[in-house]
């Protein structure tokens, strides 16, 4: 039996190896064949042979950035309230709200971005008109997606701070806000930073929201304008994979898919390893 189980565990290593092999292989295929100027071509139009990496990278960062602007205040605020202020009854009522929000699949939020956020929020904020597809709506929806994740990890970190530290603070004549902000949050800071990193990593890898709401199907020019369309690494990948039966267009379109996938994998892996470091240092302290 032991061998059976060991085989199962080893499978996880195999999967990682496969990911790396498959992706790196084709990615190398791409990068070795592509003309380097095509990588700075002013726009991402893979089927026409324009592979402007900065376009999709900035698109990803822009939307993830907007998402964090939404998710950090909402997520941390909710976390501090639940950990420090909420009565057990309030906690029992409000925590499930976050859990339900966390279980909403991203395709639903993509719908929400296009059908509600874009008309009701973006159209009002962006003067000079904007298309229905824009990075702002996608960014906000990504923020909504990530909020419960940040809230949950940060709240766990704060909850883990021992009661004795809070007592020491109150015993010195500090009020609740001071204790929360100047004792509990600093004590839980590693976990809170881990929450932010995890949230950001999730935002980078989000696909459906941007595929539906950010526009840029088929290609996009370099843009930093949240009121306009944009393209992320993830949406670029889906655009490449759909389309006609086999990924057609420029011969390098298919390998470019893997190159982008490799970039994404590398970014998120680096962030996740970083967040592990922070989580571990929380455990060491207590």
């Amino acid at each position, binding site marked *: 039996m032991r061998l059976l189980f060991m085989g*199962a565990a080893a*499978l996880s290593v195999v999967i990682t190896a*496969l990911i790396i092999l498959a992706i790196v292989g084709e990615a190398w295929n791409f990068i070795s064949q592509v003309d380097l100027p095509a990588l700075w071509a002013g726009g991402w139009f893979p089927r026409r042979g324009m592979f402007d990496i900065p376009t999709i990278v900035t698109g990803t960062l822009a939307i993830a950035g907007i998402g964090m602007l939404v998710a950090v205040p909402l997520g941390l605020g909710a976390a501090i309230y639940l950990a420090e202020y909420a009565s057990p009854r309030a906690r029992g009522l409000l925590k499930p709200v976050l859990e339900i929000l966390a279980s*909403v*699949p991203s395709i639903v939020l993509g719908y929400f971005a296009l059908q509600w956020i874009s008309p009701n929020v973006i159209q009002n904020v962006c003067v000079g008109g904007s298309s229905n597809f824009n990075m702002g709506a996608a960014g906000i929806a990504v923020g909504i997606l990530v909020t419960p994740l940040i809230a949950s990890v940060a709240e766990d970190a704060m909850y883990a701070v021992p009661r004795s530290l809070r007592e020491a603070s109150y015993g010195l004549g500090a009020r609740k806000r001071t204790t929360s902000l100047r004792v509990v949050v600093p004590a839980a800071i590693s976990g809170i930073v881990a929450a932010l990193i995890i949230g950001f990593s999730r935002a980078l*890898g989000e696909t459906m929201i941007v595929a539906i709401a950010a526009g840029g199907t088929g290609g996009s020019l370099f843009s930093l304008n949240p009121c306009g369309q944009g393209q992320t690494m993830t949406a670029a990948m889906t655009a490449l994979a759909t389309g006609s039966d086999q990924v057609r267009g420029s011969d390098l379109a298919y390998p470019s898919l893997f190159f982008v996938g490799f970039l994404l994998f590398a970014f998120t892996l680096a962030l996740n390893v970083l967040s592990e470091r922070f989580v571990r240092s929380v455990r060491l302290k207590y």
Partner: protein
Amino acid sequence: MTNLASSTSVSAEMVRERISGRRVDVGGRTFEVFLLIALLASLAILVTLLVDVFSRGSGVYLERGLDFLVSPLSSEASGAGIGQGLFGSLALMLIVALTAFPIGIGAAIYLEEYARDTTPTRFITANIRNLAGVPSIVYGLLGLAVFVVALRDFTGPESQGRSILSGGLTLAIVVLPIVIITTSEALRAVPTGIREAAYGVGATRWQTVRSHVIPYAAPGILTGTILSMARAFGETAPLIMVGGAVSFLATSDRGLLETIQGKYTTLPTSIYQWVQEPQRAFIELSAAGIMALLVTILMVNGIAIFLRNRYARRW
């Protein structure tokens, strides 16, 4: 902050003056209100979302009733439904359950019960944690390279590999790290006393695991697998990569092998197709599909939590 201890005579008046007069802590109250607003904002967003979906989608159910649930994809909005999508999703879930669950639970059992704390073990555990954080679209890419292209002859010679089998196996890989992690946690929660009691009467490790550890951890393992199912049910991105988005399920009678080697669509990918059409009729279809999706996911999550609470034993 005068040191009362150093003053020679302390009058009650002095003291009362110093410790009385509770000023309303404006700063603290405002802060608390802001935090509550942050939390309630999430609630408001959830409610807005649900209201929007329901208002747009319920019309479809009111007009067509169950017909929506069984109709296939179609270019006519009035005749299109999620029948094929539901079938595809269920087929995928079955494949996931048959592959990811045994492998994931087995791996977790190995890591928690058999493996010693050596560098290779720690490497594997770290590896699994990292896999859990990889965006699901990357798994779609893997599925594309391995199942759709490389293993085409096995997964779907007729459908260029873009088959239920490919989709199911890809989703299984997405879900595998989560299953391993939740099962590991459930196993870790089993008190060591239980294992020690079994070893103490001479049981082998497998006997201990099979007869004592697994039964105790079963509710936790069950909850974890059900939750991961709910998660897999809503996954779309990897399926797009391996070809589930633009495919129809042929309705003719086919054998099992042909079906799983054939093209398909799922509930989320059906929704994805409809969302991309600007006509209002399709928007309503997508909202109706989302209603079905949310109801299913919430029900499955609810069952998982109910089971966890019902069977959690306190020793």
